[in-house]
């Protein structure tokens, strides 16, 4: 871990997590710390465990070992994954097992994400997609909804306004009433970001946001991520294969290979790191890893 110049104010700390699927270890002893306000990039060859890391951070997977702690902007710490003693029954010793929060709890704590292959609500309009994100923070229950209480209507108007504002923010205002599945690729990416922002996150995880976008869309995206970070003060954790994009955006980079952190530091350092060069040259398809213009090819089953 490279010590940063500023005083340490981590927003998320990943401590020695290990994630296994049967015999396959997809993350092994991974630690990293992201500072508040930082844009941190996670890079690595296909199958390195980047998406698995995101899934651990968001409660989709629960690593068998290690801790993940999120420190929100209001000084509250939320343990996303951590050991929790379990009583093993009479006579037995209580043992410690890793316990993780559910994805919606993690989202509520302040972490939102996008997916490598965008997962929009395809039959809904762009507007409705964002509104669903916004509304997850509201309080209307079934009774209030059925009776259309004043508070329900108030919340509805409020979420309408927020959703419009977010669509404007990501540059999709004209697309508000288009069905999500009909949007072009780049727009889908931005819509997913808008939906994630709707949940008012303090940390935004973007899984290969530039995959499959054309150069113009990519520029848009870089600007958008900057804006999210600067104007909204959202910390960004970014997985990206596009090195050009990573080098322009990232404050720091963490490199994963075969489920392990092999390097981390500011872009210039990481670029020079022999282990990183080795990892990429040793990758089955170095072309792919270094590709800075075309869309990054996905592994199978993505």
């Amino acid at each position: 871990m490279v010590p940063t110049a500023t005083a340490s104010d981590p927003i998320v700390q990943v401590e020695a997590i290990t994630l296994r699927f049967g015999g396959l270890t997809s993350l092994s002893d991974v630690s990293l710390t992201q500072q508040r306000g930082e844009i941190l990039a996670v890079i690595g060859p296909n199958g390195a465990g980047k998406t698995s890391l995101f899934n651990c951070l968001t409660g989709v997977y629960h690593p068998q070992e290690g801790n993940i702690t999120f420190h929100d902007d209001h000084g509250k710490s939320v343990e996303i994954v951590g050991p929790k003693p379990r009583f093993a029954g009479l006579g037995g010793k209580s043992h410690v097992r890793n316990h993780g929060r559910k994805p919606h709890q993690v989202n509520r704590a302040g972490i939102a994400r996008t997916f490598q292959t965008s997962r929009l609500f395809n039959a809904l309009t762009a507007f409705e997609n964002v509104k669903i994100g916004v509304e997850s923070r509201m309080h209307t229950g079934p009774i209030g909804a059925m009776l259309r209480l004043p508070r329900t209507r108030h919340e509805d108007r409020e979420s309408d306004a927020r959703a419009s504002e977010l669509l404007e923010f990501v540059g999709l205002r004209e697309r508000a009433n288009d069905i999500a599945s009909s949007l072009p690729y780049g727009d889908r990416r931005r819509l997913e970001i808008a939906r994630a922002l709707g949940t008012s996150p303090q940390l935004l995880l973007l899984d290969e946001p530039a995959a499959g976008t054309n150069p113009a869309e990519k520029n848009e995206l870089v600007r958008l991520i900057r804006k999210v970070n600067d104007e909204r003060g959202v910390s960004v954790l970014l997985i990206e294969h596009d090195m050009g994009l990573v080098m322009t955006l990232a404050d720091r980079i963490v490199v994963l290979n075969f489920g392990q952190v092999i390097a981390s530091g500011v872009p210039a350092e990481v670029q020079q790191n022999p282990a990183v060069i080795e990892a990429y040259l040793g990758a089955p398809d170095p072309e792919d890893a270094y590709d800075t213009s075309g869309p990054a090819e996905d592994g199978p089953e993505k």
Partner: protein
Amino acid sequence: MSTVRAPTPLLRRLWLSTDARRLAACVAGGLVLAVMTGPEGSGTAPTSGFTGSLGNSRVIGFVVFGVVLWLLMTARQRYGTEIRAVSDRLSAAPRRLLPDKRVRGVFYLVLLGIAIGYPTVLNGFWQEVLVDQIGVYVLLALGLNVVVGYAGLLDLGYIAFYAIGAYSAAYWTGALPVHPLFHLNAFYAIPLAVLAAMLAGVILGAPTLRLRGDYLAIVTLGFGEIIEIVANNLQGVTGGAQGVIGIPHFSIHFLGVVYHWGLGSLPYYYLLLGFIVVVLIAFHFLENSRVGRAWVAIREDEVAAESSGINVLKYKVMAFAIGASTSGLAGMVEASKIGFVEPGDFTVQLSILILVLVIFGGMGSLPGAVIGAAVLQFLPQYLRVHPLFGFQQQDLYLYLGAILVVMMIFRPVGVFPSRRRKRELGLAEHGVGSADAMESTTGPIS
């Protein structure tokens, strides 16, 4: 090059023609239907089933059915897109013809006026059908629509909650062998019956709704069976297989208003109509609320929904409980109207029937649930009075099955689909996403 080929024999040409083969299959299907719905053979005359069902004029009806089915299929193949466009336009017609909110309001009021006025000119039989067969089932379909249509959960034990509502009615009015904590007038027992059904929904839902798709269907199927068997066997509590009688009619004495629901069907009809209107309005609001949208999100992509902060389990249980309470309400009203409950009223077949009503009308669509239930419940009664093709009540499920099969071929979204559902199914057909939360996510999530 120009060798003269022997002409293919006619039979062979026919066999090679898909149309002809399909016609043969359709007619054969019609004939099978005729045999299955016809009289049964007996030990002394084993072939009488065949001769009795194929040897008289009713067979003509079934052959015609086969030919019509064939015509429809052929037409669909040739003019599929045109037919779809027309049927879409037809089902969208009400919405297009009634663009203005106020015009639509007037339209609904007129419908309500008809629903209030028309039954008064019907005879006693039809008034009774209107309550027992149509009103109650419209209410049931509306409730199941929340579970299946809105939240995308397959509930095959839905009738269990209806049973719980009915037995609650019996319990609180003192008709059961066990004595209630305090006696209640049936009318005031309504909230308690609804609450009991809702609680049952929550208790069943909370642990099982974690399961996905088919598992949930199996668990609910089992639950439906359990309720029926318990009702049958818990003699000392439920009165056993004979059921219990003596559930009093509703009556109110409230702020000087005194009213008794009696043996007549009409007062019950109006009560049901009132409930249906209230439920329709409430569910309409629900569908277009934060809760309704959360259900759509879950239906479309559960992983994305929970990553967007939606507590998936909570919303599923909520849908389940709302459906259950509606079912309980229907059970309560029906129990009080007919004055008795018996376990035979709560078979799995009925759960399936209600599901068919919802699917037929169009999942996730309120007009669909109402029209689907009304039409499919009205038709058998109509056919009972005016038997066509020798319609017999015990063949009902056969016809329902046939209707479903035909629907799935020609219009899988139902008669009056919701716009969202239709889009989802359209996308699913093109391989984008799934139309339901029913399928499980396997493999890496990325």
